[in-house]
């Protein structure tokens, strides 16, 4: 999964039928330090995320599983709303593979 922030919403009245009733949220991927990384994308939402919330999302076929038995044509779904992130990177010299 990947960290992100909900930065918008997409409305589409004409769409593939199983998408009806699905919320389409614009998400900006983030690093654990909460800085932007990569480009925004549109995710379906399985947990009721709101604008501005810190979330994490799943990609691929698995992202359609929360909506079964409806086969929703999605490749990215928000699966969690983040309360806290703790990330502590080792200093460069401590890092050995």
């Amino acid at each position, binding site marked *: 999964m990947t960290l992100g922030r909900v930065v918008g919403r997409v409305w589409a009245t004409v769409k593939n039928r199983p998408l009806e009733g699905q919320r389409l949220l614009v998400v900006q991927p983030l690093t654990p330090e909460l800085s932007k990384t990569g480009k925004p994308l549109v995710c379906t939402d399985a947990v009721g995320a709101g604008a501005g919330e810190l979330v994490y999302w799943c990609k691929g076929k698995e992202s359609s599983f929360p909506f079964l038995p409806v086969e929703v044509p999605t490749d990215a779904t928000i699966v969690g*709303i983040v309360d806290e992130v703790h990330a502590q990177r080792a200093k460069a010299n401590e890092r050995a593979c």
Partner: protein
Amino acid sequence: MLIARVIGDLVATQKHDSHHGRKALIVQPLNLDGSDRGDAVVALDSVDAGIGDRVLLVTEGYSAMTSVGRPESPIDMAVIGVIDRIDLG
């Protein structure tokens, strides 16, 4: 799979049912020289890995969800091993 290091974790009370009961770790994939390989990701833990551990990360959904015993669930990454040693060359 990828070699990675666990650099943290995240708390999410509101999440998909299949994620409950599993730690969500912040994991940084590594190159062989230990430098960062792309962005850090969120992975469910299937081996009780700790922060700072060097781990084996699977980044494809089917293996990820089966490794945590949750078929047909929205999980696309999981920590599936704690690395003891890597021999190269």
